[in-house]
């Protein structure tokens, strides 16, 4: 299997980017696919709080950390690397990756690359997509509409939307359903992966005391998301298992 880089990013903060990363990590775990994660929210690291065993906090603007991520791709035992890009740094990171020749290697078939672009409901997000699109020619581009905090994409006019994607068939739309506030809040407080919350476990693997009802809500929600990732063939696309089936 070729090394895979899956980037999760958004230019706007507060669209639930880290939540999406967390669902992807849970999804890969369910698919028995080992993954390492880089949390670019340097120095805080929200993702690291939930998945400390596989996550490293990095500063993507420094050469040292770029090397840490990219130079290890072919040598690492773990073939899938997820990078949670800090809000506002998406375009810049893509620029940097171009500069260091990462995309050349991708185009030469050394690595697979995918981007999960978590978008907000405003028209500004469409501009953001336009900005990112040039980088995504021939790559796996997932546009993630996140309904977790009850966003309604009311500003999205279908005509404008279509216009943006004219001439490109690379974008795949992914929808993340809503999770009720109380369940979401309790998982935040627990600070564990969704799967562990559902299994009623603490960070240290000890039995927790999570609400039966809330675990039910999280289980149903995560199942819907995994079904959605299956539907768009997230893993298959990234691992060439379903080469250009779409």
């Amino acid at each position, binding site marked *: 299997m070729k090394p895979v880089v899956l980037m999760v990013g958004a230019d706007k903060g507060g669209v639930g980017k880290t939540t999406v990363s967390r669902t992807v990590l849970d999804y890969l775990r369910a698919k028995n696919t080992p993954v390492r994660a880089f949390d670019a929210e340097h120095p805080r690291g929200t993702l690291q709080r939930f998945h400390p065993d596989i996550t490293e906090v990095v500063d993507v603007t420094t050469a040292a950390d770029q090397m840490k991520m990219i130079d290890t791709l072919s040598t690492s035992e773990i073939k899938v690397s997820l990078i949670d890009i800090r809000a506002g740094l998406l375009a810049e990171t893509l620029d940097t990756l171009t500069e260091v020749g990462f995309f050349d290697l991708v185009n030469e078939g050394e690595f697979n690359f995918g981007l999960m672009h978590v978008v907000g409901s405003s028209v500004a997000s469409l501009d953001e997509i336009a900005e990112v699109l040039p980088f995504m020619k021939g790559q796996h581009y997932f546009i993630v509409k996140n309904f977790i905090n009850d966003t309604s994409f009311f500003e999205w006019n279908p005509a404008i939307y279509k216009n943006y994607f004219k001439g490109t068939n690379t974008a795949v739309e992914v929808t993340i359903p809503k999770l*009720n506030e*109380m*369940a979401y809040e309790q998982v935040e407080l627990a600070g564990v992966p969704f799967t562990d919350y559902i299994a009623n476990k603490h960070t240290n693997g000890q039995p927790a005391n999570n*609400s*039966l*009802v*809330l*675990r*039910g*809500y999280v*289980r*149903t929600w995560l199942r819907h998301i995994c079904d959605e990732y299956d539907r768009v063939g997230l893993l298959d696309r990234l691992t060439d298992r379903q080469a250009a089936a779409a």
Partner: protein
Amino acid sequence: MTVSAFSTVLPIDRQLLPDRQPLRDPDLSQSAVRPSPAAIVASLHARTGKTLLARVLADYFTLSGRPPLVFDTDVTEQTLRASFPYDTVVVDIGEIRDQMTLFDTLARRAPEARVVDVSHHAFRKFFKVMAESQFAAEARAHNVEPIIFYITDRNPDAYEEARLLRQRFDDCALVLVDNAFLGRVKEQTRRAAGYQALQEHDLRMALPRLDPGLADALDDPSLSLSAIVSQPLSRSETGQRVPGDLPFEERAALRAFLMTVFRDVHRLTREIETRAPALSSAEAAL
């Protein structure tokens, strides 16, 4: 109903006293302590006798030595709460906080029995949350035995719903309750697939027909059913106020009604308890 049935109340009492001996070995305690029943009373339609059955069950558990926690899901009427003002929690099934109060408490390891009156308004939501939270498995793991008491009525859709419940909650005992007060099942119902599918269902009980006058007496929520059963019927008993100020004949008839139901409930809970380990080992094998 014969008089001999009245005398059975005391032995039932003793048999059902929970084992409160503390056990040192937690594994031992799991196998030795009888499971706490969680009775979920439901029916698809309104006015089928749900609240009466819930009340009878609560009184049965009280008399058998494990006074229950009672949940009333009818936020507007709160009829069951009127009978057990100090032991009833009223929950709004539409509220997540209340769902947590209800199911998290129901599934908790504790010696007391639990009774839930699922109002027909709460029906869909209740069973959706019950399924999604995988309540039955969790309850079992905590030595709580959930039992759905489903009152069928005369209509085909009530049986179809019962069939779906049995399918959806195959890890949970389902008791079909026939309320004689509702009259005979319609011919059309008998021909329906749901009714036919349940013909072989073995966990069944009946609420015997009650004289309309007695049904009125039962409408008084403060009338204690356990007092009717446990207090002497004899007129010669002096100084003690008779429950509900009912005449002797009415108390006798109510007592007969209650004893019939209590015996059915006793038989069913016993049977379900003895089945339970077989069920969970089958689950474990999956």
